[in-house]
């Protein structure tokens, strides 16, 4: 069964029609590349799935069940994690603290509930090992490379046993070397049965990891097909409108 299904999703901001009747499915462990020009509606689609706001019309199904998210926490509880475009992590905290932000484990200390730093530490080591990342839990995030920061954000997804990870431009602001690191992280997630929706403007990255490519143009879905049946040239045509639909 599809882990995520969208039926006829539309979203408008006042007069702007950001999404127009988008339908798609995502299977467990599948890596989906979501592409489109600036303003095509990619981020809007991700925000609808992540519960940042409800669609104007249409239906979202998680593992076959219709859901109505009112806030990001609802989506999180349903197993959806988002790695945001501008990386929602706190520079002043350690990698481990960031992984556990908002769900810190505690232990009893006399009458107090205190943060269980040791547990945090050990779990973080485990998660980074699963991601085959060299990130050290104790390091402050502000001293980390872009790739390591991604690892921190992605480790959050593993922590909650997410079933779907949404990534908005994870490779936008980092070096070539680090891109390879992030693509590896995505493969690790997929191997663990977690579906990944990857938004990217970088065609080669998408074709390197994606099982399926989805193209949006002015709020409409113009293609959804296996990556192996498509090509960067075709996708470019779809994005610009040189090719109507595929």
């Amino acid at each position, binding site marked *: 069964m599809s882990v995520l299904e969208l039926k006829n999703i539309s979203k408008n901001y006042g007069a702007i029609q950001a999404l127009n009747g988008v339908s798609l499915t995502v299977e467990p462990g599948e890596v989906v590349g979501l592409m489109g020009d600036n303003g095509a509606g990619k981020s809007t689609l991700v925000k609808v799935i992540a519960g940042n706001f409800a669609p104007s019309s249409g239906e979202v199904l998680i593992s076959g069940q219709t859901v109505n998210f009112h806030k*990001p*926490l609802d989506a*999180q509880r349903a197993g959806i994690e*988002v790695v*945001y475009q501008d*990386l*929602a*992590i*706190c*520079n*002043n*905290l350690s990698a481990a*603290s960031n992984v556990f*932000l*908002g*769900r*810190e484990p*505690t232990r009893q*200390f006399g009458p*107090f*509930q*205190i*943060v269980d730093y040791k547990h945090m530490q050990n779990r973080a080591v485990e998660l980074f090992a699963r991601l085959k990342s060299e990130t050290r839990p104790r390091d402050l995030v502000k*001293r980390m490379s872009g790739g390591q920061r991604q690892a921190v954000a992605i480790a*959050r997804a593993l922590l909650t046993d997410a079933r779907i990870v949404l990534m908005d431009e994870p490779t936008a602001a980092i070096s070539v070397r680090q891109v390879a690191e992030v693509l590896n992280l995505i493969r690790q997630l997929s191997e663990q049965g977690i579906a990944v929706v990857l938004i990217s403007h970088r065609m080669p990255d998408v074709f390197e990891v994606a099982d399926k490519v989805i193209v949006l143009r002015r709020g409409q879905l113009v293609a959804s097909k296996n990556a192996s049946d498509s090509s960067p040239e075709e996708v470019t045509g779809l994005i610009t409108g040189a090719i109507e639909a595929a």
Partner: protein
Amino acid sequence: MHKKDLGLAILIIAVGTVVYLRNPLFLSPINLGNTANLIGLFGLFAIGQGFVIMTGGIDLSVGSVIALLGVVFVDMVGKFGVPWPLAVLIIILLGAIIGLGHGLLITRFKMQPFVVTLCGLLIYRGIARGYTAESTAGFPFGASFPDLEWLTIGRSFGVPHSFVAMIVVAIVMWMVLHQSVFGRHLYAVGKNEEAARFSGIRTDAVTISAYVICSVLAAIAAIYFAMFTKSVQPSSHGNFYELYAIAAAVLGGFSLRGGEGSIIGVVLGAVLLQELQNLVNLLGIPSSLNFAVMGTVILLGVMADQQFSAFRARKSAAQAMNLLQKDEARM
């Protein structure tokens, strides 16, 4: 202990040594006792200010809160015969309400902390002056409250209880800031509110709590100050105290941008400020220069700290570049 805290501790010891060499009275029990009392009084509310600054906000109303609640406390106990434990509870409750008001205005009405608490500064001072009709609030002659006095201005083994109270508060607040989940969230909210919100943290609640903590500690300090001065002059009592608190926090490594600082830091900041006051007195510097000395030291301290951090950042960046180059050479 952070590197910053350690640096501050060393500075305190160095300044102390210099003052002692110039005037040995510095280490006399009387002077130490008096200074400890002042550190306790000012430390109490400086810790609270730290919580607010941690969120990236500021509380300018602290001095006025100390005056208003001081007046109310003295009147309740001295004039209306309210049993002092009840009066203490009421004052703390009033403090909480004030903090809650600030927090709600800042989070729900999206007002700037500076504006909200500046208005608080004016309003509470005005109420204190209006309520007393500018006359000094004091205890009636001959009135005595042995238990209350023991708790506030008493001493054990020469250690003033205001100092003890500050240490107790500091330990509790250390637990809150550095060991509790709330503390983690406070750091997160202060640095990157959006990220905190996306992580499922109720950021408004965290911010409001910080203002409540600040005003409650100011309320407790108000009681200690009122008992220490025995009378409260509504137009001058607590004037500029918010600036002492902010100065202590900044000296203690808090960033006014939020998300940085420690309890040990702000306590050491309060210690250094009182040490400087003491220095002015003991070295025969005209006390009119008091603020000038304080301002200069804070300025130099913060400047030195930033230069040092920038130096460290450059060094680690250079190291990282080196590693990268070696990496690439291997590839």
